[in-house]
């Protein structure tokens, strides 16, 4: 830290004091000119980013536009919205139990995120706090489990859930995914850089390891935990394949329920877009109210 410049280069190496007003004006003009040149030079980059932003946001825009069109206009290629109609939302409301789907999906995502966070806190604390035989191998196994494709574990997990009698239950969706190796890895990085002095101080105060975790570590890691929890919730909310395998009733979870408007005899695009719009709402709300944490989560995970 001591070698970090506390001031800007301009402050560290101030220009020679102007001797006249003309000199000051000239210096200001020079600065303004440099700023203009810099702005002009960055224009292509900003233009590219703007185009990429538009490309990214257009499908979402199209989803909203199609959802709010009359169903008979679902295949319209007019990029402008309107005429506005709630017909597709009425169809969704009448043909699938969208309310209970949202509630079930919310419960599933919340339970999954909470469970994964709890397991990640305990596991990463163990890895960061203690040295024990086989620690590296165990950690590699965690990392390795993250690298195993879902398709490999899908059938054994399905059999296990089936034998436990949890098919067609939210518990069956949640149970095999209680541990997120990604969450453990992320939290371990944070805990590795956690000041050991604080833990030593807690020990000297007579706190047990368990108390130190909940009274010292967790409160200090709140921003990172919040960011991770949001990320886990979003990931759980967007789960599709595993829930579609376990929840055979297509009316159980929202991501599976959207499929009900896809068919061999044509897709009901208006209803699909309306159901997708509704399915996106909780994530949009999270983003609106917890924007800082969401961005933080993606930055911390390296996914910008």
């Amino acid at each position, binding site marked *: 830290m001591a070698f970090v410049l506390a001031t800007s280069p301009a402050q560290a190496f101030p220009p020679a004091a102007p001797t006249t007003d003309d000199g000051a004006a000239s210096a200001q003009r020079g600065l303004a000119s440099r700023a203009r040149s810099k702005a002009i030079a960055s224009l292509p980059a900003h233009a590219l980013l703007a185009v990429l932003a538009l490309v990214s946001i257009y499908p979402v825009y199209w989803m909203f536009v199609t959802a709010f069109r009359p169903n008979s206009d679902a295949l319209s290629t007019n990029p402008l919205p309107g005429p506005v109609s709630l017909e597709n939302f009425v169809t969704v409301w009448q043909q699938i139990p969208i309310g209970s789907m949202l509630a079930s999906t919310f419960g599933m995502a919340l339970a999954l995120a909470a469970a994964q966070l709890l397991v990640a806190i305990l596991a990463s604390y163990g890895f960061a706090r203690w040295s024990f035989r086989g620690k590296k191998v165990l950690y590699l196994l965690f990392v390795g489990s993250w690298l195993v494709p879902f398709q490999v574990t899908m059938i054994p997990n399905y*059999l296990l859930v089936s034998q436990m009698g949890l098919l067609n239950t939210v518990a069956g969706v949640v149970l095999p995914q209680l541990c997120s190796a990604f969450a453990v890895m992320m939290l371990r990085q944070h805990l590795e850089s956690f000041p050991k002095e604080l833990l030593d101080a807690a020990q000297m105060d007579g706190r047990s390891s368990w108390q130190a975790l909940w009274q010292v570590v967790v409160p200090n890691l709140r921003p990172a935990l919040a960011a991770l929890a949001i990320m886990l919730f979003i990931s759980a909310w967007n789960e*599709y*394949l595993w829930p579609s395998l376990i929840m055979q009733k297509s009316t159980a979870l929202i991501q599976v329920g959207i*499929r009900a408007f*896809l068919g061999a005899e*044509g*897709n009901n695009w208006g209803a699909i877009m309306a159901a997708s719009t509704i399915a996106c709402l909780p994530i949009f709300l999270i983003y609106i109210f917890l924007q800082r944490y969401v961005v933080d989560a993606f930055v911390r995970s390296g996914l910008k």
Partner: protein
Amino acid sequence: MFAHRARALALTAAAAVAALSLSACGASSTGSTTSAVIPELSADQKVDITFESYNLAQAGVWSDTINGLVADFEKAHPNITVHAQPPQGGGAVGANTISSVQTQLLAGHAPDVAQLTFDGFDFAATQLGAQPISDLVGQKAIDDALGGAHPFNPNAKHLADWNGKTYGIPYVFSTPVLFYNATALQKAGLPADVDLSTWDKVEAAAKAVSAKTGKPSVDVACTSIGGNWCMQGIFKSNGASVLSADRKTIQFGSDAAIDTVTKMAQLTKDGVLRNADSNSQLEGLAKGDTAFLLQSSAVQGMLMQAAAKGGWQLKASGMPGFGSKPAVPTNSGSALFILSNDPAKQRAGWEFIKFMTSDHAYEQISTKIGYLPLRTSLTQPGGSLYDWAQKNPLIAPNLAQLDRLQPWVSYPGNSYVQVDDILGKAIEGVVYYGKDPKSTMQDAQQRAQDLIK
């Protein structure tokens, strides 16, 4: 994209479970064939059965109609409870019926009655554990059930027979129909009822429309991935076949098959056939981007809505043939199979299948969903579907094709899906991407042959 990814994942699941499940179920599937007819249910015997239907995966009239029929059945048979469920997994509707049953079989709770598509019929009969219904209830009971005042169409009746036994009762299916935008044809100077009975005539009409619009005007679902069920009909119409009669030799590298895909590729070269996936094809005709679409007759309802909205006239013609050879349509769709080994559930399953293929069921299925009534005489004067058929003249080519219907051939062995994919990709390569027909089709034939050995 969504459907392709989901299908790929479903296939991965199917491949993963195949080896395990088949070894587990092999004994039951081959060793449980009963010679004695299963007993009738006693008056106070209560039975629960599970019914898996891909129609239940689709919201709206599809699931409403099937659930309504299930409720009607339970009312008529108060001692039998039917738990109706869609297939599991994320596949497109109708694309993962076999893999869903496989996975559940592995877990020890396969559905008792399942609606399975004909592409997996060989697999269902030989390895999945489908029970020979003619052994369970006797051939006479089947004949009686499929007879009556409005009997099954003779060409539909035996589509799920295997080695002299009935393994499934054909349930819902359709045939390939050439839908066209008569308004667009008239704008191109053609009569609305232009003769489209051969591919040459289709090409001539399409050239007139394309000259007017400046873009390809024909879509053919059969030549795209997923359309092999009707491509088999196009092959047969030109004297080709995908599989030999003894079911041991793949034949889509034959001269006749090569000639068939070469002729279809010529439509692309002439600028009338568009390269689009199945969904885009459907939406292309609906939006007026194209004027002709050879597709399953089941899409008729969707196209009728689009035509009414777009203010154009929808007409239909039978599948085109080649020159003077008669067109040979094949069927899409599914049959109902009994998978349970429990005699009581088998009997309950049979009662349920009889109900779901009864006059009442087809009245509901045809008028609400739009599928072809396999008891075709229901549409004739005096039949309960006569008025419906009169109001829906577009079903006429579909009904007429039943008289020339040939079965959708399923491939032998565990790799029937891969064989289908190999053929689909080869056809797309030749028809849409200009690959050499002979080398492409013969290479595909060799690869497919290796898979069925």
